């Protein structure tokens, strides 16, 4: 809680180094590899933001598309009026407020209702935006013209992912992080030691929602033309859940283990079998939930635990004189 341990210093240094290395990519390629890397960092940012809340609380949110779409629309609506960095902040604020409202309404109820509510919410927001647009404007979408190149978007998403990691790290060392650990252990004890459990969860959800909205705002220039079906695409919500669960949410970097392979596979499928993406997503979802509920990182940790357990008694046995 005070200074950094050597382990923490090492992790922070390693994280910074990896981001710096990844930032060099646009210098080598600005075609296919950059494009798929934008997808990878986008989902890295989305999944770590999602896991920031869903990891410790075990609440599965399907509202990612809502926050993302709101971020995208903040830029779409404001790009002619306000400077871009300000739009990112506005997107963050809108994401946080939306998450706060949803959280206040739902986080006191059980997890199942939360999943359904967040899914319904994303659809509702999409319909509202569509309705507002057809009512007050003739166009179905919004044009976003900027000077932003794919490289700029890539760098910004990379910075955002770094910011999410740093935030998770700082939260873990804060009262809020300790509160979440206690809640994860025993919610009754948490309440009885004085933790406002609902408030802690809502704050975490707001932080997560803000980051997801920023990701949407950063990616907006990539669409050029923004429409509700693409900005509020429910597929985004599902992919985020799948990738984060595939990687595992117990560790900060867990979701990344799912993001990289899955983005590549999805890219392959959607370019070669564009009509079958839903099937693949559905099957992947079932397979992950049934076969590796704690994700790849969970599998690795279990394997490691088994390995140490098996070798520990052996070591003791060796010490005994024959």
């Amino acid at each position, binding site marked *: *809680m*005070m200074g950094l341990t050597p382990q923490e210093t090492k992790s922070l240094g390693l994280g910074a180094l990896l981001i710096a290395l990844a930032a060099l990519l646009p210098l080598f390629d600005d075609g296919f590899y950059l494009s798929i890397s934008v997808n990878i960092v986008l989902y890295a940012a989305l999944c770590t933001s999602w896991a920031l809340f869903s990891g410790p609380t075990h609440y599965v949110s399907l509202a990612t598309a809502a926050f993302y779409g709101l971020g995208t629309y903040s830029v779409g609506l404001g790009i002619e009026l306000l400077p871009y960095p300000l739009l990112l902040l506005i997107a963050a604020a809108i994401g946080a407020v939306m998450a706060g409202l949803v959280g206040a309404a739902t986080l006191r109820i059980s997890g199942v209702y939360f999943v359904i509510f967040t899914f319904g919410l994303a659809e509702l927001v999409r319909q509202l935006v569509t309705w507002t647009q057809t009512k007050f404007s003739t166009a179905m979408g919004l044009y976003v013209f900027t000077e932003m190149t794919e490289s700029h978007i890539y760098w910004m998403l990379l910075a955002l992912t770094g910011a999410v990691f740093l935030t998770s790290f700082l939260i873990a060392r804060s*009262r809020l992080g*300790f*509160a979440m*650990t*206690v809640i*994860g*252990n*025993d919610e*009754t*004890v*948490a*309440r*009885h*030691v*004085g*933790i*406002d*459990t609902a408030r802690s969860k809502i704050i975490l959800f707001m932080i997560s929602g803000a980051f997801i909205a920023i990701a949407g705002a950063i990616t907006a220039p990539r669409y050029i033309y923004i429409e509700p079906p693409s900005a509020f695409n429910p597929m985004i919500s599902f992919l985020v859940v799948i990738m984060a669960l595939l990687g595992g949410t117990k560790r900060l970097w867990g979701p990344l283990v799912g993001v990289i392979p899955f983005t590549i596979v999805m890219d392959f499928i959607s370019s070669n079998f564009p009509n079958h993406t839903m099937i693949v997503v559905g099957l992947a979802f079932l397979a992950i939930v049934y076969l590796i509920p704690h994700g790849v990182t969970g599998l690795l940790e279990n394997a490691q635990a088994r390995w140490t357990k098996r070798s520990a008694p052996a070591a003791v046995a060796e010490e005994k004189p024959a």
Partner: protein
Amino acid sequence: MTAALSIRAARKAFGGLVAVNDVSFEVKQGELLGLIGPNGSGKTTMLNLISGALPPTAGEILLDGKRISGLPAHAIARQGVSRTFQLVRVLPSLDAEENVMSGAVFGRVRLWGEDARRIARVLLDRVGLGDRAHMPVAAMTYIDQKRVELARALAADPRVLLLDEWLAGLNPSELQIGISLIDELHREGRTIVMVEHVMDAIRSLCDRCVVMSSGRMIAEGGVSETLSDPEVVRAYLGDDDA
């Protein structure tokens, strides 16, 4: 002087079952009150109403003259009510020190960092776990987990401490240590409500006791006269419908 804790016609109904039936009593500042009664008489439910684990169906509960009934458990904890649970509840993924720190960090005193750690160390020493501060509590014996739980409750420096059969399950020598520990807390002026079945402990520790049976309070007063009250004897011998 206002009572540390006032229970006024507290009632809790679970459907048709009235687990706490219009119970009223007071706990004075610095008093150690024993809450006794046969199994299922509503003692734990009474503590649940005080700590806010359950909202009362009717009646009110005041802490130092301020109403706490109706507040959520975390708010009551911050006002200065700490408790242990009949079936011990520890934070299994944390070590003993972190378990105790949780009480200091979020409770009435709201310390952080080294301050919270220091309190945790002192209290772990106090309950006899000074050498096991970094032991994962999941690996501890039931008794040691109970000690961790008591230290966690004390870490908030509570105005009222609620103990739900904290002495249950201790062997004779542990019981002696446990009793002298509670006695010490009492001497320091801590206000304690203790649900207990161990009669020796009640006799040697409590200033007063309240006896419940089938949700009702059937007796209240000094320990020896209460325990010899015919109605109390009948309740304990199972003559009553408990």
